[in-house]
């Protein structure tokens, strides 16, 4: 398939394909991090994860309109405000859900799965009633939609760079939170021994709520970022759910680093396969390989071998 192309052209294509893989990687990381925190640290399956993302996207949509109407001069920068608000909105909803729903189900992980699926249906219908069944168009500031010509042939999408930077930023932030903050220490303590953590004076209820809120908040930021590359509609969240879960499970629940490594593996595999095969087959093969590996190594790629 490469006959008749100059070396320069091929280099350019491979470079851009490399970027495409990195962008996909960043997208997966953004999708999965929030879920990984919730699933890995709390053992809760949040099937409404996609809907929390879409809440972030709708917040972005509203903020873009507010800026266009009231502060057109600052429109170029509304996105940062939107992301912050998306984090707060999704996080607040997350904490509300934890309080009303999740905390009653900590001992029944499969039941959280069903309950959050119900929640996702409700959220979808609320979005539909409030924002309409159609997708909404989120206007992205011009500077974010262009591409950066590196050479004559290599062009790097700015929104891709943005997503990559965001993924990196959030990963670092989570790492710091997890291993350098009091909250992170408490979360890890609770994860290892809930009763003991409670006994030494950690407010497990508050920590759980905060953890769930932060996980959902990250989903909201991800959703906000995805308005640059995807659609915003009542059911758009469903598009991400299977991929997201596979990334988290493949990485080995409980391991943030594992999630990132698994996102990298899956995204590179899919990106390369998509380049050499047709899209549908690439997807099927990627999923099959992931499921196959999971069957061989059910604890995921990066789980530790522990003494029972």
């Amino acid at each position, binding site marked *: 398939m490469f006959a008749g192309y100059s070396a320069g052209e091929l280099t350019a294509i491979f470079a851009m394909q490399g970027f495409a893989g990195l962008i996909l990687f960043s997208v997966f990381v953004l999708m999965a991090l929030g879920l990984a925190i919730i699933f890995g640290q709390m053992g809760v399956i949040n099937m409404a994860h996609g809907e929390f993302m879409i809440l972030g996207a709708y917040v972005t949509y509203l903020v873009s309109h507010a800026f266009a109407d009231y502060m057109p001069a600052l429109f170029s920068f509304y996105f940062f405000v939107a992301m912050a608000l998306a984090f707060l909105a999704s996080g607040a909803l997350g904490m509300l859900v934890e309080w009303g729903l999740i905390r009653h189900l900590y001992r029944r992980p499969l039941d959280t799965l069903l309950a959050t699926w119900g929640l996702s249906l409700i959220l979808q219908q609320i979005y539909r009633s409030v924002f309409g069944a159609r997708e909404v168009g989120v206007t992205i500031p011009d500077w974010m939609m262009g591409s950066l010509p590196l050479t004559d042939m290599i062009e790097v999408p700015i929104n891709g760079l943005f997503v990559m930077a965001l993924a990196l930023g959030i990963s670092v932030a989570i790492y710091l939170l997890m291993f350098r903050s009091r909250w992170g220490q408490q979360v890890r303590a609770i994860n290892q021994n809930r009763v003991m953590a409670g006994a030494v004076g950690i407010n497990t209820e508050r920590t759980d709520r905060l953890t769930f809120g932060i996980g959902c908040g990250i989903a909201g930021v991800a959703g906000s970022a995805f308005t640059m590359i995807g659609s915003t509609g009542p059911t758009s969240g469903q598009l991400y759910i299977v991929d997201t879960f596979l990334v988290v499970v493949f990485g080995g629940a409980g391991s943030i680093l594992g999630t990132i490594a698994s996102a990298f593996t899956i995204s590179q595999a899919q990106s390369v396969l998509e380049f050499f095969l047709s899209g549908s087959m690439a997807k099927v093969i990627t999923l099959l390989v992931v499921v196959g590996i999971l069957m061989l190594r059910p604890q995921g790629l990066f789980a*530790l*071998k*522990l*003494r*029972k």
Partner: protein
Amino acid sequence: MSIHQTSFVLSVEDLTVSFDGFKAVDGLTFYVEPNECRVMIGPNGAGKTTVLDLICGRTRATSGSVRFKDQELLSMREDQIVLAGVGRKFQTPSVYEDLSVFENLELSFPRGHGVFGSLFFRRDAEVKDRIQEIAETIFLADLLDEKAAFLSHGQKQWLEIGMLLIQDPELLMLDEPVAGMSVAERKKTAELLNRIIDHRSVIVIEHDMGFVEDIATRVTVLHQGKTLSEGKMDKVKNDPKVIEVYLGH
């Protein structure tokens, strides 16, 4: 294969398991003879429960060999090990709370252990008589139809022992069988254990020294995954190494 080895019921040789570099059991070797009651003692974390886990297949060994009669246990699944004649009682009573005492015992009856065997299992006179007999042994004959969930802690321990009895294993492994019992229960249990360790080989983990002296043929003292001392109770008790790490603190 020497004749000497086959006369043992269980030969554990050079058994090692490591968890991410930490060797919980390290090159352990011991042999259990027919009708012997071997007691394992040692401080917390010495690797006693892990040894039982390794023998019954619950934990996979890193290296070494565990031979039961002429079978290598390390390559077998848990259920195959059980069917070969190795029974195991856990530290915390582990019975089926949603089932009745009768059903608990029935599930351990050594027949119909395959999928279709259990699908077409018939509760015939042989089964009922045997369960009745065992129930009387374990002081639960009046509670056969009670849900296991409603039993007291001690009764659950007895029930679990009963479930082992009905299996009739050649090698029985008991993990702290009298822990957490009232004085009266403990006495009854000791009596029960004395009765059942007849005619079979037994490995017991226990901290209660009075109880140990009562039943032990030989004692193995574990420390940091290795054998510290082995032999008759009297010999072990007077071993200065043992006194230092375990008895004399």
